């Protein structure tokens, strides 16, 4: 049989190893497995491919996917990825390392996680960040659990109905099995309704509220008074945010949040059909020991050199088992590096500029679409950045089809019968004009 590039064993190697072990053949090493469980016959798998064949096959599959100009956000944003990022994150010293258990030979990973934590705290204004969670929706689910853990004996968590649908669905799933009751605060006049929040709080037993800084309609919400109302009821405010936009809109800390969560995807991570992304979480200092996930801290080594280690591990599953704050183990470390390199390159001014271009482009698109006369504005005058929804006057199916044929992914249907649009700094004026032209013709 021909060799295989990932198996270095020669026949002579195998024989000498078997001799040393004292068995005749490799099968003897499975002698303890009941015979009925040893698979007989071939596995129903394809024949092995060579590398050129794998490459060609995968290129073929990639080619079966549409390549469209993306004018949709809804939790995944087509922001620009600087060339430096994949170059750095492909360095195998980062890529092929495990969780930094042996800190003396993992200072690279530990340092970038420390930088990442610092940047999450900077953007959100929170005191403490962990080393990352899976994605935004699971970060929200962890915040839901944390709110319950921090407010002992309370079992109800409120969700704003302005949260993106996939965030709500994941939090509901976790809540169902974790034994948490979910209450809902509706959106009125384009934003999470403060009076409805107060009414829910008056019912009692509320551990916290998860509300979006920018809601599913793209509207930047005003959370004035939310923190006070929640804190008066001994409940926590959890702000769900798009970290890219925090360069220009009020930070969770400025709204008085106890926990900030969201998805780091908007910080230069490719769309990639939904993952890998990276969930982030920032909390107030008093909740540090209730936080899920890895945390990196600074210390010194025996010679007094600055050093970084995994710390506060008494919260974690490998120490506390069923009493841990969460079951999370592997998180999204490499994607945290991705975000850290992105924010290093962009700096404060670059991030503001991304927001300016996206926001100006989105307003330009919305004005042009409204001028076609084919839409109503369900939320006139409401502040937005890169994303907005419109109500089509007629069934949008044909328009969406023609947009796709012309190379656009735009006008995504929402649950409420709107269509949503998003503009990032990657979209050009020509693309926008082209999109509007197709809508006009439809």
């Amino acid at each position, binding site marked *: 049989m021909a060799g295989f590039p990932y198996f270095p064993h020669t026949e002579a190697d195998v024989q000498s190893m078997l001799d040393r072990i004292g068995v005749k053949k490799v099968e003897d090493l499975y002698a303890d497995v009941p015979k009925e469980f040893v698979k007989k016959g071939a596995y129903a798998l394809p024949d092995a491919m060579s590398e050129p064949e794998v490459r060609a096959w995968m290129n073929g599959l990639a080619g079966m996917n549409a390549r469209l100009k993306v004018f949709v956000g809804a939790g995944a944003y087509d922001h620009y990825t600087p060339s430096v990022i994949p*170059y750095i994150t492909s360095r195998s010293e980062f890529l092929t390392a495990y*969780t930094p258990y042996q800190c003396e030979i993992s200072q690279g990973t530990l340092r970038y996680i420390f930088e990442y934590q610092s940047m999450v705290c900077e953007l959100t204004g929170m005191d403490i960040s962990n080393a990352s969670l899976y994605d935004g929706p*699971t970060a929200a689910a962890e915040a839901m659990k944390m709110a319950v853990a921090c407010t002992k004996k309370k079992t109800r968590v409120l969700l704003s109905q302005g949260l993106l649908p996939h965030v709500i669905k994941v939090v509901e799933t976790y809540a169902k099995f974790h034994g948490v009751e979910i209450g809902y605060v509706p959106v009125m006049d384009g934003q999470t309704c403060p009076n409805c929040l107060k009414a829910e709080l008056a019912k009692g037993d509320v551990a916290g509220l998860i509300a979006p800084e920018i809601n599913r309609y793209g509207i930047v919400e005003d959370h004035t008074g939310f923190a006070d109302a929640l804190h008066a009821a001994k409940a926590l405010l959890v702000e769900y945010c798009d970290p890219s936009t925090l360069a220009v809109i009020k930070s969770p800390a400025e709204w008085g949040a106890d926990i900030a969560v969201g998805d780091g995807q908007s910080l230069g991570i490719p769309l990639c059909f939904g993952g890998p992304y990276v969930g982030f979480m920032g909390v107030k200092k008093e909740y540090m020991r209730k936080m899920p996930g890895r945390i990196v801290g600074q210390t010194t*080594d025996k010679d007094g050199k600055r050093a970084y280690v995994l710390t506060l591990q008494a919260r974690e599953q490998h120490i506390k088992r069923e009493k841990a704050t969460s079951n999370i183990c592997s998180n*999204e470390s490499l994607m945290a590096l991705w975000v850290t390199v992105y924010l290093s390159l962009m700096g404060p001014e670059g991030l503001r500029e991304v927001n300016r271009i996206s926001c100006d482009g989105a307003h330009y698109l919305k004005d042009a679409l409204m001028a076609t006369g084919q839409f109503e504005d369900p939320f006139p005058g409401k502040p937005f950045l890169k994303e907005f929804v419109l109500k089509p006057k007629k069934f949008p199916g044909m328009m969406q089809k023609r947009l796709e044929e012309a190379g656009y992914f735009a006008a995504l249907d929402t649950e409420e019968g709107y269509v949503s649009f998003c503009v990032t700094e990657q979209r050009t004026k020509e693309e926008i004009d082209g999109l509007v032209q197709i809508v006009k013709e439809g």
Partner: protein
Amino acid sequence: MKYYDKLIFELSKEGRTGYSLPANRFPAAPELPVALRREASLDLPEVSEVDVVRHYTNLSQMNFGVDTGFYPLGSCTMKYNPKVNEEVAALPGFTGLHPLMHAGLTKGALKVYQEMNKALAAITGMEAFTFDPCAGAHGELTGLMIMRQYHMMRGDLKRTKVIVPDSAHGTNPASAAVCGLEIVEVKSLENGRVDVEALKPLLDETVAGMMMTNPNTLGLFETQIKEITELVHGIGGLMYYDGANMNPLMGVVRPGDMGFDIMHLNLHKTFSTPHGGGGPGSGPVGVAAHLVDCLPDIRVSGFHGNFGVILRAYAYILMLGKQNLKKVGQYSVLSANYIKECLKDAYKLPIEGVCKHEFVFDGLINDGAHDDVHGATTLDVAKRLLDFGFHAPTIYFPLLFHQALMIEPTETESKETIDAFIDVMHKIAEEAAEDPRILQEAPHNAPIKRPDETAAARNPILKFKDAQ
């Protein structure tokens, strides 16, 4: 490895930029209302592109990965990560796909999921997989949700307990707790296997199921698995297979055939995708035919799981094909047994006999303790290994032994590499016997010496501004 002592924030200089954005050709949008605007400062680094590239390159050089050298970290399956996987996962036809694009626009991506579903079903004997979970522990949680969903759908609401062996990965009880289940621990026998007699009295109609990994965390095959699954099924419970230890069974034994109903796989272990310093992973969950109806209501991640990781695993499966699958299991077991036999003269082997992909020593036979000198511990052995260019094994796990040293070589290491490791382990044992302080002061030539972890926890410095 060279010590490099900078944080990116310390390279910052006001006015320096590292980005390149198109000119803004749009009219200015109306300003946000003042009440919604950020007023806080935003102290991100201001650095050039060159600064960034050099900084992170320097950081990377303080890191050890599989591409650097042998990484025998038990239960982590640190096999080689093929480069063609990286290449195909970076194809723009995949990376440019928005997760909300409908099926007609994403035919290639959906075909990847279908083919992966078929392949993993064939490898494990399960019926269908969900690819939403983003890591192994996430898969466990999802699998337990499915377990509870199954009972709930049958109107059987009294099943609130899950049985977990005392040798289980820490994520097992933690996942069960997140899923709202009460954990009941079952003890192991002297021979490292689940004590079936101790299991029997724990089984009643309040048990939702049992979590097991087979081979277990000692690398030992649970020889009474058939009896265990029959007992648990007999009281209406389900069997969960923790796929962290699937590697030795690749191409040889299928969890579905052993009677497991639900399982997860770690694509970042068994299916060669890189660990990335702690993720992204992927933990698809497979179920037997009678549980397929429980899948749809359970949504545990935003979109379709970690597609980029799934692509890499798919490329690996294509390379393996049916011809090479069995060699994964066999060579991983061969290498583990070889190391065990070669080193048991210097390290305590608590349970004799054939192991699977990994095994556990309980520290040094001669730790060098005499008179006023303390003996070398497992931690000391681990730290000394770093000096010789090897990653350390998993230490102090499983909890069944005080000095656990858990070694997993995987199938991708050559005999030469393994022999070099064995030589170094013998040398370290000799050093310990002669002068344990050599080990206790190790590492001697890593970028840093041992850090003060107590100070890190007592006075937490968790961000740059805390350190200033």
